[in-house]
């Protein structure tokens, strides 16, 4: 309970007008490269475990939309951008380090 109380504090203090606490996530990948596949499966697992029912995940293949690379300032891939809630955060890599992903999403680390 105490953990759940901490969570809204840390995020919602910054962006209170956000009624919706849904996590808006965009994952940029490059086709079916090993890193991309791993990132997709790792992220899905994390979301299912920690944010069940409270997230929207969009997976974008940059190969298909090269223009987006410049617009979104993409360099390293795979890239996860958390648009909401709170400030935008960028996470790169295959999402294998769960603690780092959680920290990046502003969630408490797994024990």
């Amino acid at each position, binding site marked *: 309970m105490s953990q759940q109380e901490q969570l809204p504090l840390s995020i919602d203090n910054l962006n209170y007008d956000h009624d919706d606490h849904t996590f808006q996530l965009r994952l*940029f990948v*490059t086709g079916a*490269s090993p*890193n991309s596949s*791993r*990132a997709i499966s*790792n992220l899905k697992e994390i979301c299912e475990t920690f944010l069940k029912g409270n997230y929207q995940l969009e997976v974008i293949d*940059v*190969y298909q939309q*090269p*223009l987006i*690379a*410049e617009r979104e*300032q*993409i*360099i*390293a*891939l*795979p*890239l*996860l951008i958390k648009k909401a809630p709170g400030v*935008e*955060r*960028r*996470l*790169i*890599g*295959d*999402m*294998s*380090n769960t603690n*780092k*992903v959680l*920290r*990046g999403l502003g969630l408490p680390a797994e024990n």
Partner: protein
Amino acid sequence: MRRNKTSCTMTNFHKQQHSFIQLPKTPTGITGLDEITGGGLPKGRPSLICGEAGCGKTLMSLEFIIRGATQFNEPGVFMAFEEKAEELTQNVASLGFDLNKLQHDKLVKLDHVHIDRSEIEETGEYDLEGLFIRMGYAIDSIGAKRVVLDTLENLFSGLSDTAILRAELRRLFNFLKEKGVTAIITGEKGEGGSLTRQGLEEYVSDCVILLDHRVINQISTRRLRVVKYRGSQHGTNEYPFLIDEEGISVLPVTSLKLEKEVSSSRVSSGIPALDDMLGGKGFFKGSSVLVSGTAGTGKTSIAAYFANETCNGGKKCLYFAFEESPKQIVRNMKSINVDLQKHIDKGVLQFFASRPTLYGLEMHLVAMYKLIHKFKPDAVVLDPITNLITVGSVSEVKSMLVRLIDFLQEMQITVMFTALSLNTIVSEQTDEGVSSLVDAWLLVRDIEYNGERNRGMYIMKSRGMKHSNQVREFIITDKGLDLVEVYLGPEGVLTGSAREAQKLQEKTGVALRDFAVSRKDKEIMRKRKMLESKISSLQAEFESAEEELNKIYLEEQLKQEIVERNRAEMTNMRKGSIDAENKIRSKK
């Protein structure tokens, strides 16, 4: 003639060989850089430009892109890891480049790559495919032939996994080569001897250019050096370059070869006696002349005379003054009967006066280049080059003058330098060491003798013409400059009043001798007269003596006659047979 022909075919042969070996190159369009690299950067390969912060890496690479787009019709992509596109646009707008228009015309694509470590969380394995896609898209969208990555090393500050980065860099360079673009990667100079902080030179092995920015004696000079250029010959020296309102200009020795045209026509020095010393005709057109001497020996006057003569002949002359202001020179030269003002008014003479310390040597050189290009003079005067030493070392001044002389000779412009020699020892050929470069060297020096100072002039050397080996006295009067022959007497060379005194002395000697001669003549006359009178008196004496003698003789004769007559009479009187006596007489 024959030798020329062979050498000609030789060079042709070399050229042909060259075209086989020569790498295809992409001209940068940057003044001077293409000369050093023998045509530009290796085509279709990445090159590295490295240097400290603020040494001009970004500008050089950006100019490469812009010149490519505007001059060579090669579109280019500029990936900026440091500055934003707007900032870059503003920065080059001051150089007269309109990046917005070029972007609009799809000739240039600017892409600002933003990396901030604080915004990024690394959660595992990743690659830089995003950058590749981005770059690939940018290249394809405008058909780019040129790419710049400025400064790629910023990736290392944004991302922490250097192992991944290094692997990706290697892939990046392969990617660029595959794309067939000529790329420039810039990198910050690293600690110690390494060229870049992250060792980018390991990946880029074809062409590495090092930029440098040094401040010596409060005057900063930018320099460029081609550290490496695989498969091509290149200038290996450090070349100064500068950034001005027209972009970057690298100043190489205009050509690495010594193949300029020569002229055998002559130009007068303006002083007839000096022309006489130079085989009667003066200097060669397009040659370089050095006038050196100690302070106050009339170097500027000689230079002004030369300028005046050039202008009188309807030719144009450009006068660089590093010591006096133009007005000062004009006024001073009036005192020796040279009117420069009328040439200025006519527009055939132009002064360019600047303090040597105003800016660095390279700036001076560029200013001269530009003025010479604009004014197109037939003769150039630099007065004095020695003042440039205040802004550079002897070797720097020398290298600058080498380039200037080279440039002027290519343009067939006659140049006269004046140099102040602090040392009166002639054998010590300082003079900024240009004495070996110049074609003719006139030396004006003080000759101190007998409590006065006079100017002596002689020709140290004059390539390709017969010239006098004599020391002449150099005289500056109200009427102008002149050379007179010094007096060479048993006591050595005499000048000035000593020469005059010697002349006077000689004149006196002649007068005295003349006088003596006339006196002797008179004496002889007198003696002759005396003797003549003596002779006449003696003659008179002789005559009187003769007369006396004659008188006696006549008296004797008379006496005898009388005696005989008397005797005859006596005989008659004695009645002697006269007939008998007559017979006897007739028998007798």
